[in-house]
């Protein structure tokens, strides 16, 4: 007889970009987590504080991050459909709160926080998803997925189970797309030049659909592709894994 496994109580860190620009990614994430056997809750939240942190505004960043420490208290796990926001919590909260009274809380939250695909594969033990996508897809690996949350193979493992999907890997897929949060606003020329390189590499694959696990990168990439009239569509990886292809792809006209 196997032990009854209690369903882990998981909080969704929805990320401000998903919350504001693409709520359907939030719902796709919830579906994936529920399919993986989690009980999902969405505590009231704003932002992880990364824009302030990366702009050198430490006090603002700490004040915002403290609202996150409060919001995510007590959950078994905290999962974000983003390497960037997860990376902020996992890698940078401990540094941000080092030497303060919230040091232990920050370390605790960091230890319970995950990027979505890594959580699904490594914690929830998900090996396949129930989804179909008749397309050739390519993946942009976000810098934070690669270098802050250890996410590279997990999204590929899950995509391999999507029926009809063919993966076409791009060259230079570990190179930044040029978004970088405030970088895109402060140095738009350089950011746009990097984004054009990224769009070139993605188009070269011949893929119909480009995916990433970070909406920041996706907005940058899709904005660049669509400006040049590219036929390549762009989605968050959670949408494909959750089987939501009904929602128009990012920046595509609604019906």
């Amino acid at each position, binding site marked *: 007889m196997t032990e009854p496994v209690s369903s882990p109580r998981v909080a969704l860190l929805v990320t401000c970009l998903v919350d504001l620009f693409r709520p359907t990614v939030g719902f796709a994430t919830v579906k994936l987590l529920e399919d993986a056997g989690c009980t999902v809750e969405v505590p009231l939240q704003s932002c992880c504080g990364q824009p302030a942190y990366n702009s050198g*505004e430490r006090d603002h960043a700490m004040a915002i991050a403290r609202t996150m420490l409060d*919001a995510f208290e007590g959950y078994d796990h905290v999962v974000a459909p983003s390497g960037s926001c997860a990376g902020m919590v996992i890698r940078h909260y401990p540094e941000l709160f080092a030497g303060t009274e919230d040091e232990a809380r920050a370390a605790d939250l960091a230890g319970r926080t995950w990027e979505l695909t890594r959580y699904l594969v490594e914690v929830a033990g998900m090996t396949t998803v129930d989804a179909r996508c008749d397309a050739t897809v390519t993946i942009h690996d976000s810098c934070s997925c690669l270098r802050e949350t250890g996410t590279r193979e997990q999204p590929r493992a899950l995509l391999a189970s999507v029926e009809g999907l063919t993966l076409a890997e791009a060259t230079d897929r570990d190179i930044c797309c*040029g978004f970088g949060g405030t970088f895109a606003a*402060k140095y*738009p020329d*350089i950011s746009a030049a990097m984004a054009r390189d990224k769009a070139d590499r993605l188009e070269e694959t011949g893929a119909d659909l480009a995916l990433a696990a970070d909406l920041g990168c996706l907005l940058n990439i899709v904005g660049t592709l669509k400006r040049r009239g590219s036929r390549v569509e762009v989605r968050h990886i959670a949408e494909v894994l959750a089987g939501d292809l009904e929602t128009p792809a990012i*920046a595509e006209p609604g*019906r």
Partner: protein
Amino acid sequence: MTLHQLTSSRFKQQAAKALEDEVLQDNLVKLKGNFLQRRANARESLPEFDDLRDIAVGIKTHTLEHLDLYLEAFENAVEASGGHVHWARDDAEARNLVLAICRAENAKTVTKGKTMVGEEIGLNAYLEANGITPVETDLGEYIIQLAGEPPSHIIAPAIHKNRQQVAELFNDHHPDLADRGPDDVDGLLADARAVLRQRFLKADVGITGANFLIAETGQTVIVTNEGNGDLTQLLPRVHLVVAGIEKVVPSLEDATSIMRILARSGTGQEMSSYTSFSAGTRRPGDIDGPEAFHVVLVDNGRSALLGSPTEEILRCIRCGCCLNACPVYGKVGGHAYGSTYSGPVGAVLTPALAGLAETNHLPNASSLCGRCEAVCPMRIPIPKMLRHLREEEARSGRAPAAARNGLSLWAAFAKRPGLYRWATNLAMCVLAGRAGKRGRFASLPGAGAWTRDRDLAAPQGTSFQTRWKKGERPGTWA
């Protein structure tokens, strides 16, 4: 404290110019493919590469913790082998010390091996202004000397130039030699060699930098791929080494340990073609070597970094690997940075040494992608230090007011999640309404910087948190 000829305050204009320069863009693409792939291959064929990195970091960290002791030991060892050590607090002192040594030797011509510190202190211009002709002997340095430009890359100073541009430079500056076409690589090299050979023989003083200073033995070490460093330090009567104080390591073994990752990281070679150890003056019975050996140790702001949040940048071994990995460097090239040290390492080192007043663009012009840290053989946490410098800028009140105000306004909402949810939902609904069914904006007031080059995807409408609060759950699209 200023680094020589700093133009970092014009970073934006210099970067814009670089982005429009099609020849430069072509040249930069070539750089990207070469060095980093070779590094990856070299790393793969050395399973203990990452262990060596840890060892190297340990050596440098230990040395920096006891820098005074090792520098004194180095000085004693140099003096014991017949050489002299001179201490320069800043660039002006360093230039004057070098000039004084050259003058004491009645030097007219000096040959120079590649030295980044020499660039940092503006040595060439100073020597020339004082009647001494410096001749760069590293091919890349020689090319940019002819062009009257600073180096654009730490290990490949003329990487921004293609063969056509080099051929034109040589044809202009070598009037006694035949004109060469850009495809005649051997001919171009032969010309440079012929010209430089005469200079080597004429030089009174040979100036080199140093990759390492070995405290135990008093040796200075240079690694090169052309052998020019050897000729620079062996042929003239006097060998003068200019080096930053952070170059010291305790022992010969320490230097050779770090060397195992230096060339692999920079050019992907197992070792550089030439590795030369200089130990004082020619001894009785030696067949060659200088009659006088001087080492000018340059501080120029370095000691002030000890114990500071940017101390770890002093571990840098100038392999240039972070430049090769950096997507920003790959788009704008080294000259845009307006500093001797460009790329990620320069974005930390230049402001750390010269202050943020003229260099505040450098730590900001990064997407913090972390590729530099991932490849750095010395595991220097460059993004962390860029953030620190941004904090310093914010504290100083020098950050642009518009950006700070915008951020403060946004933070005021983000600190109150309930208010944030209400306000952002309203904003997204307005924005989505404005987009209608188009899905994106080709232009949007207030988003000009973004929409000049990119479309902006329209939000879907009601925010996730608002929809969730109203009870909406997955499956509504099915």
